[in-house]
Protein backbone atom coordinates (compact mmCIF):
# COMPACT_ATOMS: atom_id res chain seq x y z
CA UNK A 1 0.00 0.00 0.00
CA UNK A 2 1.56 3.34 -0.88
CA UNK A 3 0.95 6.60 0.95
CA UNK A 4 -1.04 7.84 -2.01
CA UNK A 5 -3.97 5.75 -0.87
CA UNK A 6 -6.42 7.34 1.53
CA UNK A 7 -6.06 4.43 3.95
CA UNK A 8 -2.82 2.96 5.26
CA UNK A 9 -3.06 -0.45 6.94
CA UNK A 10 -1.38 -1.05 10.29
CA UNK A 11 2.20 -2.08 11.05
CA UNK A 12 3.72 -5.14 9.42
CA UNK A 13 3.58 -8.22 11.64
CA UNK A 14 4.36 -11.90 11.19
CA UNK A 15 1.84 -14.70 11.31
CA UNK A 16 2.57 -18.36 10.72
CA UNK A 17 0.46 -20.15 8.16
CA UNK A 18 0.90 -23.90 8.35
CA UNK A 19 4.24 -23.19 10.01
CA UNK A 20 5.51 -20.74 7.37
CA UNK A 21 6.16 -17.15 8.50
CA UNK A 22 4.30 -14.62 6.35
CA UNK A 23 3.68 -10.90 6.61
CA UNK A 24 0.37 -9.31 7.46
CA UNK A 25 -0.75 -5.83 8.51
CA UNK A 26 -2.20 -4.98 11.89
CA UNK A 27 -5.95 -4.35 11.72
CA UNK A 28 -6.42 -6.81 8.85
CA UNK A 29 -8.67 -9.79 9.17
CA UNK A 30 -6.95 -13.10 8.74
CA UNK A 31 -9.03 -13.62 5.60
CA UNK A 32 -7.77 -10.40 4.01
CA UNK A 33 -4.18 -11.25 4.94
CA UNK A 34 -4.49 -14.73 3.44
CA UNK A 35 -6.12 -13.39 0.29
CA UNK A 36 -3.37 -10.79 -0.12
CA UNK A 37 -0.88 -13.66 0.08
CA UNK A 38 -2.72 -15.50 -2.68
CA UNK A 39 -4.34 -18.26 -0.62
CA UNK A 40 -7.62 -18.86 -2.35
CA UNK A 41 -8.27 -22.33 -0.88
CA UNK A 42 -8.78 -22.13 2.88
CA UNK A 43 -10.00 -25.61 3.65
CA UNK A 44 -11.40 -28.82 2.24
CA UNK A 45 -14.85 -30.09 3.05
CA UNK A 46 -15.53 -32.83 5.51
CA UNK A 47 -17.45 -35.25 3.29
CA UNK A 48 -16.15 -34.86 -0.24
CA UNK A 49 -12.84 -33.08 0.40
CA UNK A 50 -13.74 -30.27 -2.00
CA UNK A 51 -11.82 -26.98 -1.78
CA UNK A 52 -13.48 -23.94 -0.21
CA UNK A 53 -12.41 -20.34 0.12
CA UNK A 54 -13.77 -17.03 1.28
CA UNK A 55 -17.42 -16.70 0.36
CA UNK A 56 -19.41 -14.15 2.37
CA UNK A 57 -16.43 -12.49 4.12
CA UNK A 58 -18.82 -11.22 6.79
CA UNK A 59 -19.18 -14.04 9.25
CA UNK A 60 -22.32 -15.70 7.89
CA UNK A 61 -21.32 -18.76 5.88
CA UNK A 62 -18.51 -20.36 7.94
CA UNK A 63 -16.76 -21.49 4.77
CA UNK A 64 -13.55 -19.77 5.87
CA UNK A 65 -12.97 -21.64 9.13
CA UNK A 66 -9.35 -22.35 10.05
CA UNK A 67 -7.48 -23.31 13.22
CA UNK A 68 -5.91 -20.37 15.09
CA UNK A 69 -3.53 -20.96 18.00
CA UNK A 70 -5.04 -24.40 18.45
CA UNK A 71 -8.66 -23.26 18.41
CA UNK A 72 -10.62 -24.91 15.61
CA UNK A 73 -13.57 -23.47 13.73
CA UNK A 74 -12.33 -19.85 13.73
CA UNK A 75 -13.75 -17.71 10.96
CA UNK A 76 -10.80 -16.17 9.12
CA UNK A 77 -13.01 -13.30 7.94
CA UNK A 78 -13.89 -12.26 11.51
CA UNK A 79 -10.50 -12.83 13.15
CA UNK A 80 -7.97 -10.01 13.32
CA UNK A 81 -4.32 -10.94 12.74
CA UNK A 82 -1.96 -10.80 15.72
CA UNK A 83 1.79 -10.95 15.78
CA UNK A 84 3.01 -14.53 16.06
CA UNK A 85 -0.43 -16.03 15.41
CA UNK A 86 -0.31 -19.70 14.37
CA UNK A 87 -2.79 -20.52 11.64
CA UNK A 88 -3.46 -23.97 10.33
CA UNK A 89 -5.47 -24.12 7.19
CA UNK A 90 -7.51 -27.30 7.15
CA UNK A 91 -6.67 -27.44 3.45
CA UNK A 92 -3.66 -29.29 4.82
CA UNK A 93 -5.85 -32.18 5.77
CA UNK A 94 -7.68 -34.48 3.43
CA UNK A 95 -10.66 -34.58 5.76
CA UNK A 96 -11.52 -31.75 8.06
CA UNK A 97 -13.33 -32.53 11.32
CA UNK A 98 -15.05 -29.51 12.83
CA UNK A 99 -15.38 -29.20 16.58
CA UNK A 100 -18.70 -30.60 17.79
Amino acid sequence: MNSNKPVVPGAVITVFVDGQPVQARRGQTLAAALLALGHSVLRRTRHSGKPRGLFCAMGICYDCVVTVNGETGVRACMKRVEDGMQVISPAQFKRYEPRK
Partner: protein
Amino acid sequence: MTVELDTDIAVVGAGPAGLAAALAAAGAGARVTVLDEYPEPGGQFYKQLSSEFSVPERARLDDDYTKGDELLAAVRDAGVTLSPETLVWGSFEPGTLSVMQGHAAGTVRARSIIVASGAYERVVAFPGWDLPGVMTPGGVQTLVKNQQVAPRGRIVLGGSGPFLLAVAKSLIAAGAKPAVIYEATRPLEWLRHAPRLWGHWDRISEALHYRRLIAAAGVPVRFGRIVVRAEGDARLERVVLMECDGEGRPIPGTEQIERVDTLCIGYGFVPSVQLARLLGCTHRYELRRGGWVPEHNEEMESSVPSVFVTGEVAGIGGAHVALAEGRLAGLGAARRLGLQVADAAMADARQERLTRRRFGDLVNDVFALKPGVYDQIGDDTLVCRCEEVTARQIREAATEWGADVNFVKGVTRCGMGYCQGRVCGGMVEELTARTVGCSREAVGAFRVRPPLKPVQVGSLADLARE
Protein backbone atom coordinates in the same frame (compact mmCIF):
# COMPACT_ATOMS: atom_id res chain seq x y z
CA MET B 1 -14.91 -14.70 32.90
CA THR B 2 -18.49 -13.47 32.57
CA VAL B 3 -20.18 -10.31 31.42
CA GLU B 4 -23.18 -8.80 33.23
CA LEU B 5 -24.96 -5.71 32.06
CA ASP B 6 -28.16 -3.85 32.91
CA THR B 7 -29.66 -1.25 30.63
CA ASP B 8 -32.98 0.36 29.70
CA ILE B 9 -32.73 -0.49 26.03
CA ALA B 10 -30.50 -3.05 24.38
CA VAL B 11 -30.07 -2.49 20.66
CA VAL B 12 -28.77 -5.47 18.72
CA GLY B 13 -26.83 -4.35 15.67
CA ALA B 14 -24.69 -1.23 15.19
CA GLY B 15 -25.64 -0.48 11.59
CA PRO B 16 -27.62 2.60 10.48
CA ALA B 17 -30.89 1.33 11.97
CA GLY B 18 -29.39 0.35 15.32
CA LEU B 19 -27.38 3.55 15.65
CA ALA B 20 -30.32 5.76 14.66
CA ALA B 21 -32.52 3.93 17.17
CA ALA B 22 -29.92 4.31 19.91
CA LEU B 23 -29.53 8.00 19.19
CA ALA B 24 -33.27 8.68 19.27
CA ALA B 25 -33.85 6.65 22.44
CA ALA B 26 -30.89 8.23 24.26
CA GLY B 27 -32.13 11.65 23.18
CA ALA B 28 -35.42 10.88 24.92
CA GLY B 29 -33.53 10.04 28.11
CA ALA B 30 -33.09 6.25 27.96
CA ARG B 31 -29.92 4.40 28.93
CA VAL B 32 -28.96 2.56 25.76
CA THR B 33 -26.41 -0.15 24.98
CA VAL B 34 -25.68 -1.26 21.44
CA LEU B 35 -24.44 -4.83 21.03
CA ASP B 36 -22.67 -5.78 17.82
CA GLU B 37 -20.71 -8.80 16.67
CA TYR B 38 -18.07 -6.87 14.71
CA PRO B 39 -14.98 -5.11 16.12
CA GLU B 40 -16.01 -1.74 14.64
CA PRO B 41 -19.50 -0.26 14.68
CA GLY B 42 -21.31 0.85 11.53
CA GLY B 43 -22.85 -2.38 10.27
CA GLN B 44 -22.45 -3.28 6.62
CA PHE B 45 -23.45 0.14 5.25
CA TYR B 46 -21.23 2.29 7.46
CA LYS B 47 -18.60 -0.27 8.27
CA GLN B 48 -15.69 1.53 9.87
CA LEU B 49 -12.03 0.94 9.18
CA SER B 50 -9.98 -0.89 11.76
CA SER B 51 -8.57 1.48 14.38
CA GLU B 52 -5.16 0.04 13.50
CA PHE B 53 -5.38 1.57 10.02
CA SER B 54 -4.43 5.19 9.57
CA VAL B 55 -6.23 7.66 7.37
CA PRO B 56 -4.00 10.61 6.49
CA GLU B 57 -6.86 12.53 4.92
CA ARG B 58 -10.33 11.62 6.10
CA ALA B 59 -11.87 13.87 3.44
CA ARG B 60 -10.62 11.57 0.70
CA LEU B 61 -12.77 8.70 1.93
CA ASP B 62 -16.17 8.32 0.35
CA ASP B 63 -19.51 9.39 1.77
CA ASP B 64 -20.31 6.19 3.60
CA TYR B 65 -17.43 6.81 5.97
CA THR B 66 -18.16 10.47 6.58
CA LYS B 67 -21.89 9.84 7.10
CA GLY B 68 -21.04 6.96 9.40
CA ASP B 69 -18.58 9.19 11.27
CA GLU B 70 -21.24 11.82 11.89
CA LEU B 71 -23.81 9.33 13.11
CA LEU B 72 -21.32 7.59 15.38
CA ALA B 73 -20.09 10.87 16.83
CA ALA B 74 -23.68 11.86 17.62
CA VAL B 75 -24.34 8.44 19.19
CA ARG B 76 -21.27 8.74 21.41
CA ASP B 77 -22.16 12.32 22.39
CA ALA B 78 -25.59 11.14 23.43
CA GLY B 79 -23.98 8.83 25.98
CA VAL B 80 -24.86 5.55 24.27
CA THR B 81 -22.68 2.58 25.30
CA LEU B 82 -21.26 0.73 22.31
CA SER B 83 -20.37 -2.86 22.95
CA PRO B 84 -18.43 -4.25 19.96
CA GLU B 85 -17.38 -7.87 19.43
CA THR B 86 -20.45 -8.94 21.35
CA LEU B 87 -22.38 -11.81 19.83
CA VAL B 88 -25.97 -12.22 20.98
CA TRP B 89 -26.50 -15.96 20.82
CA GLY B 90 -29.58 -16.66 22.90
CA SER B 91 -32.39 -15.44 25.11
CA PHE B 92 -33.82 -17.62 27.84
CA GLU B 93 -36.22 -15.25 29.62
CA PRO B 94 -38.04 -12.14 28.45
CA GLY B 95 -35.80 -9.08 28.69
CA THR B 96 -32.52 -10.97 28.75
CA LEU B 97 -29.98 -11.65 26.05
CA SER B 98 -27.19 -14.18 26.31
CA VAL B 99 -23.99 -12.78 24.89
CA MET B 100 -20.45 -13.80 24.15
CA GLN B 101 -17.53 -11.34 24.14
CA GLY B 102 -14.49 -13.15 22.84
CA HIS B 103 -14.38 -16.14 25.13
CA ALA B 104 -16.39 -14.51 27.92
CA ALA B 105 -20.06 -15.43 28.18
CA GLY B 106 -22.64 -13.24 29.88
CA THR B 107 -26.12 -11.82 30.17
CA VAL B 108 -27.58 -8.46 29.22
CA ARG B 109 -30.82 -7.40 30.93
CA ALA B 110 -32.94 -4.74 29.29
CA ARG B 111 -36.44 -3.33 29.70
CA SER B 112 -36.75 -3.09 25.93
CA ILE B 113 -34.92 -4.79 23.09
CA ILE B 114 -34.51 -3.28 19.65
CA VAL B 115 -33.55 -5.86 17.05
CA ALA B 116 -31.56 -4.17 14.28
CA SER B 117 -29.73 -7.24 13.04
CA GLY B 118 -29.70 -6.20 9.39
CA ALA B 119 -29.57 -8.54 6.43
CA TYR B 120 -27.27 -10.79 4.51
CA GLU B 121 -27.02 -11.69 0.89
CA ARG B 122 -29.34 -13.91 -1.04
CA VAL B 123 -27.46 -16.38 -3.16
CA VAL B 124 -29.13 -18.74 -5.54
CA ALA B 125 -27.11 -21.89 -6.12
CA PHE B 126 -25.74 -23.00 -9.47
CA PRO B 127 -23.27 -25.77 -10.25
CA GLY B 128 -19.84 -24.70 -9.03
CA TRP B 129 -20.99 -21.93 -6.68
CA ASP B 130 -18.87 -23.46 -3.92
CA LEU B 131 -15.59 -23.05 -5.82
CA PRO B 132 -13.04 -20.75 -4.19
CA GLY B 133 -13.23 -17.51 -6.16
CA VAL B 134 -17.03 -17.29 -6.08
CA MET B 135 -17.98 -14.65 -3.52
CA THR B 136 -20.89 -12.51 -2.45
CA PRO B 137 -20.87 -8.84 -3.48
CA GLY B 138 -20.96 -7.77 0.17
CA GLY B 139 -17.92 -9.89 0.90
CA VAL B 140 -15.98 -8.28 -1.91
CA GLN B 141 -17.12 -4.83 -0.78
CA THR B 142 -15.83 -5.53 2.74
CA LEU B 143 -12.49 -6.72 1.42
CA VAL B 144 -11.81 -3.76 -0.85
CA LYS B 145 -13.31 -1.02 1.27
CA ASN B 146 -12.54 -2.05 4.80
CA GLN B 147 -9.61 -4.36 4.40
CA GLN B 148 -7.93 -2.61 1.48
CA VAL B 149 -7.34 -5.92 -0.29
CA ALA B 150 -8.70 -6.50 -3.77
CA PRO B 151 -9.78 -9.95 -4.86
CA ARG B 152 -7.56 -11.53 -7.42
CA GLY B 153 -7.51 -11.54 -11.19
CA ARG B 154 -10.35 -10.89 -13.56
CA ILE B 155 -13.43 -9.84 -11.60
CA VAL B 156 -16.97 -10.28 -12.87
CA LEU B 157 -20.15 -9.13 -11.10
CA GLY B 158 -23.43 -10.98 -11.47
CA GLY B 159 -26.87 -11.38 -9.99
CA SER B 160 -29.17 -8.42 -9.59
CA GLY B 161 -29.73 -5.17 -7.79
CA PRO B 162 -28.27 -1.72 -7.21
CA PHE B 163 -25.74 -3.06 -4.72
CA LEU B 164 -23.75 -4.52 -7.62
CA LEU B 165 -23.12 -0.96 -8.78
CA ALA B 166 -21.94 0.09 -5.33
CA VAL B 167 -19.48 -2.81 -5.29
CA ALA B 168 -18.31 -1.91 -8.80
CA LYS B 169 -17.70 1.64 -7.61
CA SER B 170 -15.56 0.44 -4.70
CA LEU B 171 -13.58 -1.88 -6.94
CA ILE B 172 -12.93 0.92 -9.42
CA ALA B 173 -11.79 3.22 -6.61
CA ALA B 174 -9.42 0.51 -5.38
CA GLY B 175 -7.90 0.11 -8.82
CA ALA B 176 -9.44 -3.35 -9.29
CA LYS B 177 -11.84 -2.54 -12.09
CA PRO B 178 -14.37 -5.30 -12.75
CA ALA B 179 -14.37 -6.65 -16.31
CA VAL B 180 -18.16 -6.63 -16.70
CA ILE B 181 -21.41 -6.52 -14.74
CA TYR B 182 -24.20 -8.98 -15.59
CA GLU B 183 -27.57 -7.81 -14.30
CA ALA B 184 -30.45 -10.30 -14.49
CA THR B 185 -33.17 -7.70 -15.13
CA ARG B 186 -33.55 -5.50 -18.21
CA PRO B 187 -34.22 -1.73 -18.36
CA LEU B 188 -37.30 -2.45 -20.49
CA GLU B 189 -38.73 -4.45 -17.62
CA TRP B 190 -38.20 -1.48 -15.29
CA LEU B 191 -40.31 0.93 -17.31
CA ARG B 192 -43.65 -0.02 -15.78
CA HIS B 193 -42.33 1.18 -12.41
CA ALA B 194 -41.14 4.55 -13.74
CA PRO B 195 -44.09 6.69 -12.54
CA ARG B 196 -43.34 5.75 -8.95
CA LEU B 197 -39.97 7.51 -9.18
CA TRP B 198 -41.66 10.89 -8.97
CA GLY B 199 -40.42 12.90 -6.01
CA HIS B 200 -37.44 10.77 -5.03
CA TRP B 201 -34.96 13.14 -6.68
CA ASP B 202 -32.08 12.70 -4.25
CA ARG B 203 -32.08 8.95 -4.77
CA ILE B 204 -32.36 9.27 -8.55
CA SER B 205 -29.35 11.54 -8.76
CA GLU B 206 -27.42 9.14 -6.56
CA ALA B 207 -28.22 6.28 -8.94
CA LEU B 208 -27.24 8.34 -11.98
CA HIS B 209 -23.97 9.25 -10.32
CA TYR B 210 -23.11 5.57 -9.86
CA ARG B 211 -24.11 4.79 -13.40
CA ARG B 212 -21.94 7.59 -14.82
CA LEU B 213 -18.97 6.60 -12.73
CA ILE B 214 -19.14 3.01 -13.92
CA ALA B 215 -19.61 4.04 -17.55
CA ALA B 216 -16.68 6.49 -17.29
CA ALA B 217 -14.46 3.68 -16.01
CA GLY B 218 -15.42 1.67 -19.09
CA VAL B 219 -17.12 -1.18 -17.24
CA PRO B 220 -19.90 -2.58 -19.44
CA VAL B 221 -23.24 -3.55 -17.91
CA ARG B 222 -25.00 -6.40 -19.72
CA PHE B 223 -28.64 -6.94 -18.91
CA GLY B 224 -30.87 -9.99 -18.91
CA ARG B 225 -28.09 -12.52 -18.33
CA ILE B 226 -27.50 -14.93 -15.48
CA VAL B 227 -24.65 -17.18 -14.43
CA VAL B 228 -25.79 -20.79 -14.85
CA ARG B 229 -22.54 -22.59 -14.04
CA ALA B 230 -19.07 -22.01 -12.62
CA GLU B 231 -16.16 -24.25 -13.50
CA GLY B 232 -12.57 -24.74 -12.50
CA ASP B 233 -10.10 -27.12 -11.04
CA ALA B 234 -9.72 -26.40 -7.30
CA ARG B 235 -10.76 -22.83 -7.91
CA LEU B 236 -12.87 -20.71 -10.22
CA GLU B 237 -11.60 -20.41 -13.79
CA ARG B 238 -14.66 -19.66 -15.90
CA VAL B 239 -18.40 -19.18 -15.78
CA VAL B 240 -21.16 -20.00 -18.22
CA LEU B 241 -23.83 -17.34 -18.69
CA MET B 242 -27.18 -17.48 -20.45
CA GLU B 243 -29.71 -14.91 -21.49
CA CYS B 244 -32.91 -15.16 -19.53
CA ASP B 245 -36.50 -14.20 -20.20
CA GLY B 246 -38.68 -11.94 -18.06
CA GLU B 247 -39.25 -14.78 -15.63
CA GLY B 248 -35.55 -15.53 -15.33
CA ARG B 249 -35.72 -18.75 -17.32
CA PRO B 250 -32.53 -19.36 -19.33
CA ILE B 251 -33.09 -19.12 -23.09
CA PRO B 252 -31.69 -22.23 -24.87
CA GLY B 253 -28.82 -21.62 -27.26
CA THR B 254 -27.57 -18.45 -25.57
CA GLU B 255 -24.65 -19.94 -23.63
CA GLN B 256 -21.59 -17.80 -23.37
CA ILE B 257 -18.33 -18.64 -21.61
CA GLU B 258 -16.39 -16.03 -19.70
CA ARG B 259 -12.95 -16.40 -18.14
CA VAL B 260 -13.21 -15.31 -14.49
CA ASP B 261 -10.97 -15.44 -11.43
CA THR B 262 -13.36 -13.79 -9.00
CA LEU B 263 -17.12 -13.95 -9.47
CA CYS B 264 -19.07 -11.73 -7.19
CA ILE B 265 -22.71 -12.79 -7.29
CA GLY B 266 -25.85 -12.04 -5.31
CA TYR B 267 -29.58 -11.52 -5.81
CA GLY B 268 -30.33 -8.88 -3.22
CA PHE B 269 -30.67 -9.42 0.50
CA VAL B 270 -32.53 -11.49 3.08
CA PRO B 271 -33.53 -10.08 6.48
CA SER B 272 -31.45 -11.54 9.28
CA VAL B 273 -34.39 -12.65 11.42
CA GLN B 274 -32.82 -15.38 13.57
CA LEU B 275 -32.85 -13.31 16.77
CA ALA B 276 -36.33 -11.89 16.16
CA ARG B 277 -37.60 -15.43 15.68
CA LEU B 278 -35.81 -16.70 18.76
CA LEU B 279 -37.45 -13.90 20.77
CA GLY B 280 -40.80 -15.25 19.61
CA CYS B 281 -41.85 -12.48 17.22
CA THR B 282 -44.53 -13.47 14.71
CA HIS B 283 -43.21 -13.45 11.15
CA ARG B 284 -44.92 -13.34 7.78
CA TYR B 285 -43.61 -14.12 4.33
CA GLU B 286 -43.17 -11.01 2.23
CA LEU B 287 -41.27 -11.77 -0.95
CA ARG B 288 -40.95 -8.11 -1.92
CA ARG B 289 -39.08 -7.27 1.28
CA GLY B 290 -36.73 -10.24 1.14
CA GLY B 291 -38.72 -13.13 2.62
CA TRP B 292 -39.68 -13.78 6.23
CA VAL B 293 -40.09 -10.52 8.15
CA PRO B 294 -41.26 -9.84 11.70
CA GLU B 295 -44.65 -8.21 12.06
CA HIS B 296 -44.76 -4.88 13.84
CA ASN B 297 -47.07 -1.99 14.68
CA GLU B 298 -46.78 1.66 13.58
CA GLU B 299 -44.02 2.30 16.11
CA MET B 300 -42.00 -0.77 15.13
CA GLU B 301 -42.94 -2.86 18.16
CA SER B 302 -43.14 -6.54 17.25
CA SER B 303 -45.80 -9.04 18.34
CA VAL B 304 -43.75 -9.51 21.54
CA PRO B 305 -44.26 -6.56 23.91
CA SER B 306 -41.14 -4.40 24.37
CA VAL B 307 -39.33 -6.08 21.48
CA PHE B 308 -38.87 -3.70 18.56
CA VAL B 309 -37.63 -4.50 15.06
CA THR B 310 -36.12 -1.99 12.69
CA GLY B 311 -34.22 -1.53 9.43
CA GLU B 312 -33.28 -4.37 7.10
CA VAL B 313 -34.42 -7.05 9.53
CA ALA B 314 -37.94 -5.61 9.31
CA GLY B 315 -37.81 -5.85 5.50
CA ILE B 316 -35.17 -4.99 2.92
CA GLY B 317 -35.21 -1.30 2.03
CA GLY B 318 -31.69 0.13 2.14
CA ALA B 319 -29.75 2.51 4.37
CA HIS B 320 -32.20 5.43 4.14
CA VAL B 321 -35.04 3.23 5.32
CA ALA B 322 -32.83 1.90 8.10
CA LEU B 323 -31.99 5.40 9.36
CA ALA B 324 -35.61 6.59 9.31
CA GLU B 325 -36.99 3.41 10.77
CA GLY B 326 -34.28 3.29 13.42
CA ARG B 327 -35.27 6.71 14.68
CA LEU B 328 -38.92 5.65 14.82
CA ALA B 329 -38.10 2.47 16.74
CA GLY B 330 -35.87 4.39 19.16
CA LEU B 331 -38.62 6.90 19.88
CA GLY B 332 -41.20 4.13 20.13
CA ALA B 333 -39.08 2.14 22.57
CA ALA B 334 -38.41 5.23 24.70
CA ARG B 335 -42.09 6.01 24.83
CA ARG B 336 -42.81 2.41 25.80
CA LEU B 337 -40.53 2.93 28.83
CA GLY B 338 -42.70 5.86 29.86
CA LEU B 339 -40.31 8.57 28.66
CA GLN B 340 -41.63 11.77 27.14
CA VAL B 341 -41.67 11.78 23.35
CA ALA B 342 -43.52 14.60 21.60
CA ASP B 343 -46.38 13.47 19.36
CA ALA B 344 -45.01 15.71 16.62
CA ALA B 345 -41.65 13.91 16.71
CA MET B 346 -43.41 10.55 16.49
CA ALA B 347 -45.57 11.71 13.58
CA ASP B 348 -42.56 13.12 11.76
CA ALA B 349 -40.61 9.87 12.19
CA ARG B 350 -43.58 7.84 10.95
CA GLN B 351 -43.91 10.03 7.87
CA GLU B 352 -40.20 9.88 7.08
CA ARG B 353 -40.28 6.10 7.39
CA LEU B 354 -43.20 5.79 4.98
CA THR B 355 -41.50 7.96 2.35
CA ARG B 356 -38.28 5.97 2.56
CA ARG B 357 -40.12 2.65 2.53
CA ARG B 358 -41.97 3.68 -0.63
CA PHE B 359 -38.69 4.15 -2.45
CA GLY B 360 -37.21 0.99 -0.93
CA ASP B 361 -40.20 -1.02 -2.18
CA LEU B 362 -39.84 0.51 -5.63
CA VAL B 363 -36.20 -0.61 -5.83
CA ASN B 364 -37.24 -4.05 -4.57
CA ASP B 365 -39.90 -4.27 -7.29
CA VAL B 366 -37.56 -3.16 -10.07
CA PHE B 367 -34.97 -5.78 -9.11
CA ALA B 368 -37.45 -8.42 -7.93
CA LEU B 369 -35.99 -11.90 -7.90
CA LYS B 370 -37.02 -13.65 -11.09
CA PRO B 371 -38.43 -17.03 -10.12
CA GLY B 372 -36.71 -18.77 -13.06
CA VAL B 373 -33.25 -18.31 -11.53
CA TYR B 374 -34.07 -21.29 -9.33
CA ASP B 375 -34.29 -23.40 -12.52
CA GLN B 376 -30.49 -23.51 -12.73
CA ILE B 377 -30.43 -25.61 -9.55
CA GLY B 378 -30.10 -29.03 -11.18
CA ASP B 379 -30.44 -32.23 -9.17
CA ASP B 380 -26.69 -32.54 -8.71
CA THR B 381 -26.24 -28.94 -7.59
CA LEU B 382 -25.03 -28.45 -4.05
CA VAL B 383 -27.55 -26.49 -1.99
CA CYS B 384 -26.33 -26.76 1.61
CA ARG B 385 -22.63 -25.90 1.56
CA CYS B 386 -21.95 -26.89 5.18
CA GLU B 387 -23.40 -30.39 5.11
CA GLU B 388 -22.93 -30.88 1.36
CA VAL B 389 -26.55 -31.66 0.52
CA THR B 390 -27.67 -31.61 -3.11
CA ALA B 391 -30.92 -30.42 -4.63
CA ARG B 392 -31.81 -34.03 -5.44
CA GLN B 393 -31.69 -35.02 -1.77
CA ILE B 394 -33.90 -32.06 -0.88
CA ARG B 395 -36.40 -32.79 -3.65
CA GLU B 396 -36.55 -36.46 -2.72
CA ALA B 397 -37.07 -35.65 0.95
CA ALA B 398 -39.78 -33.14 0.07
CA THR B 399 -41.53 -35.70 -2.14
CA GLU B 400 -41.42 -38.29 0.59
CA TRP B 401 -42.07 -36.16 3.67
CA GLY B 402 -44.28 -33.44 2.29
CA ALA B 403 -44.51 -29.75 2.81
CA ASP B 404 -42.47 -29.15 5.94
CA VAL B 405 -39.05 -27.67 5.59
CA ASN B 406 -38.05 -28.91 9.05
CA PHE B 407 -38.72 -32.51 8.02
CA VAL B 408 -36.58 -31.97 4.95
CA LYS B 409 -33.87 -30.60 7.22
CA GLY B 410 -34.12 -33.55 9.58
CA VAL B 411 -33.92 -36.11 6.80
CA THR B 412 -31.14 -34.54 4.72
CA ARG B 413 -29.17 -32.58 7.39
CA CYS B 414 -29.37 -29.48 5.20
CA GLY B 415 -29.16 -26.38 7.36
CA MET B 416 -27.65 -28.26 10.29
CA GLY B 417 -24.05 -27.14 9.75
CA TYR B 418 -22.08 -24.20 11.07
CA CYS B 419 -24.05 -21.49 9.23
CA GLN B 420 -27.28 -22.95 10.62
CA GLY B 421 -29.13 -22.61 7.36
CA ARG B 422 -28.51 -18.91 6.82
CA VAL B 423 -27.11 -19.53 3.35
CA CYS B 424 -29.32 -22.41 2.16
CA GLY B 425 -32.54 -21.78 4.14
CA GLY B 426 -34.39 -19.75 1.52
CA MET B 427 -33.39 -22.17 -1.23
CA VAL B 428 -34.46 -25.23 0.73
CA GLU B 429 -37.84 -23.59 1.39
CA GLU B 430 -38.23 -22.65 -2.26
CA LEU B 431 -37.23 -26.10 -3.57
CA THR B 432 -39.52 -27.80 -1.07
CA ALA B 433 -42.43 -25.55 -1.99
CA ARG B 434 -41.90 -26.17 -5.71
CA THR B 435 -41.49 -29.91 -5.32
CA VAL B 436 -44.65 -30.24 -3.29
CA GLY B 437 -46.49 -27.52 -5.20
CA CYS B 438 -47.46 -25.31 -2.29
CA SER B 439 -46.71 -21.87 -0.90
CA ARG B 440 -43.68 -20.71 1.09
CA GLU B 441 -46.00 -20.06 4.04
CA ALA B 442 -47.06 -23.71 3.95
CA VAL B 443 -43.52 -25.10 4.01
CA GLY B 444 -42.45 -22.71 6.77
CA ALA B 445 -38.90 -21.80 7.77
CA PHE B 446 -36.10 -23.58 9.59
CA ARG B 447 -36.68 -23.48 13.34
CA VAL B 448 -34.11 -21.40 15.17
CA ARG B 449 -32.63 -22.36 18.49
CA PRO B 450 -29.73 -21.16 20.60
CA PRO B 451 -26.87 -20.75 20.11
CA LEU B 452 -27.72 -18.55 17.12
CA LYS B 453 -24.09 -18.91 16.04
CA PRO B 454 -21.63 -21.55 17.20
CA VAL B 455 -20.07 -20.61 20.56
CA GLN B 456 -17.30 -22.18 22.58
CA VAL B 457 -18.72 -24.83 24.87
CA GLY B 458 -16.10 -24.02 27.54
CA SER B 459 -17.32 -20.43 27.83
CA LEU B 460 -20.87 -21.61 28.47
CA ALA B 461 -19.59 -23.92 31.20
CA ASP B 462 -17.98 -20.86 32.88
CA LEU B 463 -21.32 -19.12 32.81
CA ALA B 464 -23.06 -22.08 34.38
CA ARG B 465 -20.45 -22.29 37.14
CA GLU B 466 -20.59 -18.63 38.19
